[in-house]
């Protein structure tokens, strides 16, 4: 049980906090509940988060 909880926690690459992001999918955008940074799930096994890439010139609607 303890192990599962540990596995669910992942480090925010921006503020370094250990955060619980729940069930996620690859490339999903999540928000760090501590610092508010927008993060992308770049790997699932293990879960790795990266800060969203810089906005590109033609991004948007």
């Amino acid at each position: 049980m303890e192990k599962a909880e540990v596995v669910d926690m992942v480090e925010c690459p921006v503020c370094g906090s250990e955060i619980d992001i729940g069930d996620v999918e690859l490339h999903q955008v999540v928000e760090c509940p501590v610092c508010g940074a927008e993060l992308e799930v770049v790997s699932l096994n293990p879960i790795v988060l990266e800060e969203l890439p810089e906005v590109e010139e033609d991004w948007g609607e």
Partner: protein
Amino acid sequence: MRIGITYTILRREELEIKERAGDFGEVFMLHEDDMVFPSNLDLDVVIIRNVGHFKALYLARLFESEGIPVVNPFTVMLEAGDKLLATLRLKDRVPVPDWRAGVSEKASEKAVEELGYPVVLKPVFGSWGRLLAKVNDRDALEAVLEHRKWLRNPLYGIHYVQKFVEKPGRDIRSYVIGGEFVTAIYRYSEHWITNTARGGKAEPCYDEEVRELSLRAWEAFGEGALAIDIFEGSEGLLVNEVNPNMEFKNAARVTGVDIAKKLVEYALEVAKA
């Protein structure tokens, strides 16, 4: 029904679309890293959700070339996704802010002289209010033109100038999908750029005139799913621009309208057409 959804990142919008699409058929999530064309994909329709305009544009055409219908179609992406080309579509059907266009710096200066300050210099592509420049005088104009030159992107050499429209601290964003008016919101901001992606606040907008104007703007393109930006000018409503790759999480939240479902239902219609 086999429904493809292309994407760059999974935002709330893409997750909602995926969930709604799952109610109608088999869903194939297509990340941009995993698609190579010609493809062997056997799909009835593809909903394009890549964040970058040019990626979305080319994916639309690539799928169409394989006989797979897309939302939005290439021609809608092309013309609605370019601020100047969209204006050329819109101008004979709906009121738009006074505008001029030219393809050189000198032409841009003349365009500004014709309109009179203040003006807004708009890149023909891009969104979220990026690189929009409100220009109040000649000095500012020269600075913006100089900066644009050094951006080294030929599209910044296409100069689209709008007369600045004084707004009542808000503008309107409406959604028309497949010729059906879906919903609209007011976007409030103290800044002259009111996009909610830049921190503007949203409220529902229930206005018959907005509904009617939005439908006329959509008819200028005649197909697809469009988000329409409307200004409340001193002499009435003006269609500022249209967006073919709509974001909608704020609008869905404040209006309670299931925009993702509307988009999926429209994609199913397109698949059957």
